[in-house]
């Protein structure tokens, strides 16, 4: 997969740090919610890049590590609220996986402040904007995630 | 409501009908500014002087005194502190003066 084009975190001399945030979202709730944010013209910071999945249950946690390795300074995983999953139980599995994975990540030294799990429904356009702004501000304060990127490029990945 | 009341005071358009209410509030605050705590007898006297309602409640005072509900002297507390607050609020409002 090394053939792809990637842009490094833009950090020119003298310029302020702008984090790169990757959001993994489900198609039915959060993607639709983010569409509603657009339809409602609610502004938020442009640092987030959304990747659409059918369900949070589809989100493999290797993807999160991959995102960090390839220059993301923060990651959001968001789907339907408990009980509202389009596929009945996908978000429960995601949640269960998250609980386990969280401990593993913490053990391996991943900075958990850079990883946010949230529920945003299709009706919560404003919440999506708040979430993105909150995560962006937090990650901006934390600075670029050089540690993991360095590890990854050293071949640990 | 509060805002409208306070604005009316600030631009001096209080209805003359309410003048005695304002007089009461002024007497009340004056008492706090002077003593730090409310001095009830003083407040009432101040109010009467401001409004001219000299005889209002005249019958009440003796029975209050008899029941120990009307002190003749203000309580002692940190007077400077309260006076300072009043002064600083005033200064904030009228920076020129």
């Amino acid at each position, binding site marked *: 997969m090394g053939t*792809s084009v990637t842009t490094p975190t833009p950090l020119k001399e003298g310029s302020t740090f702008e984090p790169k945030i990757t959001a993994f979202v489900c198609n039915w709730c959060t993607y639709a919610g983010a*569409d509603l944010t*657009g339809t409602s013209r609610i502004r938020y910071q442009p640092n987030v*890049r*959304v990747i659409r999945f059918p*369900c949070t*249950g589809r989100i493999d946690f290797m993807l999160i590590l991959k995102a960090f390795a390839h220059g993301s300074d923060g990651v959001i995983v968001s789907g339907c609220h408990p009980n509202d*999953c*389009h596929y009945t139980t996908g978000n429960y599995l995601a949640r269960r996986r998250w609980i386990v994975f969280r401990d593993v990540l913490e053990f391996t030294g991943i900075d958990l402040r850079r990883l946010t799990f949230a529920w945003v429904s299709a009706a919560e356009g404003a919440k999506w904007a708040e979430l993105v702004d909150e995560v962006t501000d937090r990650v901006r304060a934390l600075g670029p995630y050089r540690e993991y990127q360095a590890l990854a490029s050293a071949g640990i990945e | 409501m509060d805002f409208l009341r306070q604005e009316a005071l600030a631009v001096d358009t209080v209805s003359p009908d309410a003048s005695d209410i304002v007089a009461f509030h002024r007497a009340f605050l004056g008492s706090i500014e002077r003593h730090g705590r409310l001095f009830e007898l003083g407040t009432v006297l101040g109010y009467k002087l401001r409004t001219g309602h000299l005889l209002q409640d005249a019958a009440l005072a003796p029975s209050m005194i008899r029941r120990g509900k009307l002190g003749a002297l203000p309580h002692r507390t940190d007077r400077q502190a309260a006076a300072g607050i009043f002064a600083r609020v005033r200064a904030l409002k009228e920076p020129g003066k």
Partner: protein
Amino acid sequence: MSRIGVFVCHCGENIAGTVDCAVVAEAARSLRGVVHSVDYKYMCSDPGQKLLKEAIRDKNLDGVVVAACSPRMHEPTFRAAAEEAGLNAYQCEMANLREHCSWVHAKGEATTAKAIDLVRIQVEKVKRNAPLRPIRVPVARTALVLGGGIAGIQAALDIANAGNQVILVERSPSIGGHMSQLSETFPTLDCSQCILTPRMVEVARHPQITLYTYAELERLDGFIGNFKATIRKRARKVDEKICNGCGVCTQKCPVKKIPDEFNEGLSMRRAIYVPFPQAVPNRPVIDTANCTFFKSGKCRACEKLCTAKAIRFDQQDEVVTREVGAVVLATGFRTMGTNQFPEYGYGRYPDLIDGLKFERLASASGPTSGAIKRPSDGKIPETVVFIACAGSRDEQKGVSYCSKICCMYTAKHAMLYRHKVHGGKAYVFYMDVRAAGKNYDEFVRRAVEEDGVKYLRGRVSRVYPDKGQLVVKGVDTLLGGEPLEIRADMVVLATAVQAQHGSEELAQKLHVAYDKYRFFAEAHPKLRPVETNTAGIFLAGACQSPRDIPESVAQASGAAAKVCGLFSRPELAREPIVAVVDRQPPPVFSHCVGCFLCRSACPYQAIEEEAIRTRNGEIIRTVAHVNAGLCQGCGTCVATCRTKAIDLQGFTNEQVFAEVVAI
């Protein structure tokens, strides 16, 4: 080597206003594998689509990225266009430059940079897209209608009259819903039951409608065209087929003091009862919670008196499953109780009633035969105060939305009261009068001008009892804002319309989205008002938001039209977004190791076992296999698989990892 085309849409000024589309197209051109990149004012327009099609043919493209609005909006449009030009529809992806970029960020470099990133992500994905074919599935031409109020009745009749089968499920013992409780209807003042009962009878007689009353949906499985509905028919304890509806049992039952739901507790019913005389089906039901026999094992009066021998004390609930192709949700509304208002006495004053109780008082078939008598002592009230917006438009104490029907029914109530009690005084406290609708405002004007109803613009702060009357403390904000007190004999609250009890559970059963007030959510507030986000499930009436009768009927017909459209096709194309388990040539056969963790993750029981055998039938290995008919494409199995042997078409590991790397 890929041959990708990128098409950047300006969407007029919607995207071009904040994103420099030319720069995006230019940047896309330099991406590896991109052989064609242009920007255009409206990609979804005819010339825009033509541009796309021509490029596919001329440049021999094997994948396209349309950078425009949300794929939830126009993905079908561009996929169809790509298909017409000879490209597989699933070789077309969309980058969401509008909802996720131009509409939510300020004009500037960062926004354009984001747009370029979004395009690059999709380019990397589409390079790895495989051509897919839609899965064809047959459509079961039976509709399930949930709720037997006017919306459900209308939808059922429309669908059935078009030649389809309908199963109508109603929770209470009779269809008719709230409309059957109403006295007269605005703005014409025609009798509600007179116009409703013919429809109810038509439902009962219709050869293509199966009516399940006193029944509820237990679960719904499957997908559009192929749902499987499990319905619980609660035991009436009366054999519907044998019973002839003579009603002797309902007159002789010794338990007489049960508040009558249909009359909103203004009268009493028996333990065996027919909800109201025009009920459909006109068959009694035993209220087992109150029946002496079910409480103490004695009585059986109804059984002894039934000439048809239709009483079945041992009848059990019956669970039936039916294949249905579409579902119409018409579960209606409820109104907020008067006990929600502490300032109006928490529902403790008998003469402070809600609108539905007033309907029953005013109804010719009601407990007072249409005479307005107050509940406490049966006295004819000389002064009645109506309070509109009780709980509506009041985020602090109720709901933030307007309940929509109250302005009209309050005007109607005041008018009916003035017609029935000539010397009576009627006051209405209101916030605004919202009478938008054909002949609606005229109706309210009539209440004010001809019938002398006093409208007071202001809120009521308190109602309290005093010497047999209710004192209403309010304010008239138009006449000087003076507080005023009215001594009333009766007070009617127009309480807020709320989502029906159990809406949330039902929505979760059906995977239908709902809002914070538990009204079901439409797929698009303007353009898809009768559809839900779940394909094949439609909405009618007040289960979506407060509605009056004409609107409910119109929406029900709209939903019925959608169902009929769906049923007009013999089969349905389903998205080929399903999971597949990898297969390899021998000696590997598959990367699947047969751990079947995927099976425990699958919400649809779509994972089956498949034995790989030698030529003489010996089992070499047992691996997983996905039943594409059951798989809904959530992909949970993919993330669960330890060996990456299972993958989701359209969202393959290769695709999504490429997307992530492209960021």
